[in-house]
């Protein structure tokens, strides 16, 4: 029991600390739409310093600066595409968690569905083929031997 208590305390401390680690600044917005846009953007833009986090989750100094820049641009009345193009001009498409659809990213977007349909196609083909193999009719002598085998087994099964 004591051991479990220790694990419980350890986990509480671990997750209790990490879940409060990110510090978010408080911003005043003129409208609900601007606030929505801000929250949406910081969720969709990647922190380039700590690459597997978005701006909202990251506590890196660069992420703080990028959030600040996003906030300032929205406050100035800039649109969503203004902020996105500002960031991609400096950090490339890499800064977007949702990469744009263009020739360079074609495989990224089209690859998975193609792969899915290809594997579904192959799977269906394989199942069909197996079905045909099974439906081959038995010869009369094979039937006879099956009957004999079933008849001899029957007494054993009755218990």
């Amino acid at each position: 029991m004591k051991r479990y208590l220790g694990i419980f305390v350890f986990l509480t401390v671990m997750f209790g600390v990490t879940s409060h680690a990110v510090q978010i600044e408080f911003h005043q917005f003129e409208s609900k739409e601007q606030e929505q846009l801000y929250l949406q953007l910081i969720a969709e833009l990647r922190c380039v310093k700590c690459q597997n986090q978005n701006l909202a989750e990251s506590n890196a100094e660069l992420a703080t600066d990028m959030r600040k820049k996003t906030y300032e641009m929205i406050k100035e009345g800039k649109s969503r595409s203004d902020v996105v193009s500002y960031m991609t001009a400096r950090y490339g498409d890499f800064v977007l968690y949702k990469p744009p659809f263009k020739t360079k990213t074609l495989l990224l977007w089209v690859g998975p569905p193609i792969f899915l349909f290809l594997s579904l196609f192959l799977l269906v083909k394989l199942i069909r083929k197996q079905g045909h193999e099974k439906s081959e009719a038995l010869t009369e002598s094979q039937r006879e031997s099956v009957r004999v085998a079933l008849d001899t087994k029957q007494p054993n099964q009755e218990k």
Partner: protein
Amino acid sequence: MSKKYFVPLIGFGALVALLLFGLSNDPKLIPSPFIGQPAPEFKLPKMYKPNETISVSDMKGEVWVLNLWASWCVSCRAEHKVLSRLIAEKKVPTVGLNYKDYGTEDYGDDALQWLATLGNPYTAVAVDTKGMAGIDWGVVGVPETFVIDKKGIVRYKFTGPVYPDAVDDILIPLIDKLRAEAG
């Protein structure tokens, strides 16, 4: 044995090759969108002469280097000697962009001491206290080094501390090549 039994094996081999290729890529090296583009402008106060400014357009007409650094950055210290050698050897004008360091609450004038101790190889040091010029240049982490040609086009970006082999194999040949180009 039928050939079709080799299909999963070949597929597995292809997957391993793909993953190995992925391992050899460094995700921290983000390709800079500035290569081949005009250098982003900034106009910032000089470190030793706060009344004067230094801007990107001041440097036009020459092949020059922009080095982002800070006194709090440990690998900048490691890079400093290597970079100083490049600057001395090639006599290449170099602007040091002091990123979120000089004049900030946390670091005050640490940068002055840093340069006094290690030497100041820069033609000019631009002070970017707020780090906004840094963002304009797409900073991910200092140090970062850019090479800009005579026309003011960014030609190369080196992410991380410059090491001796990079100076000899990449930067010096590049500077020679760019100097030979028409201005």
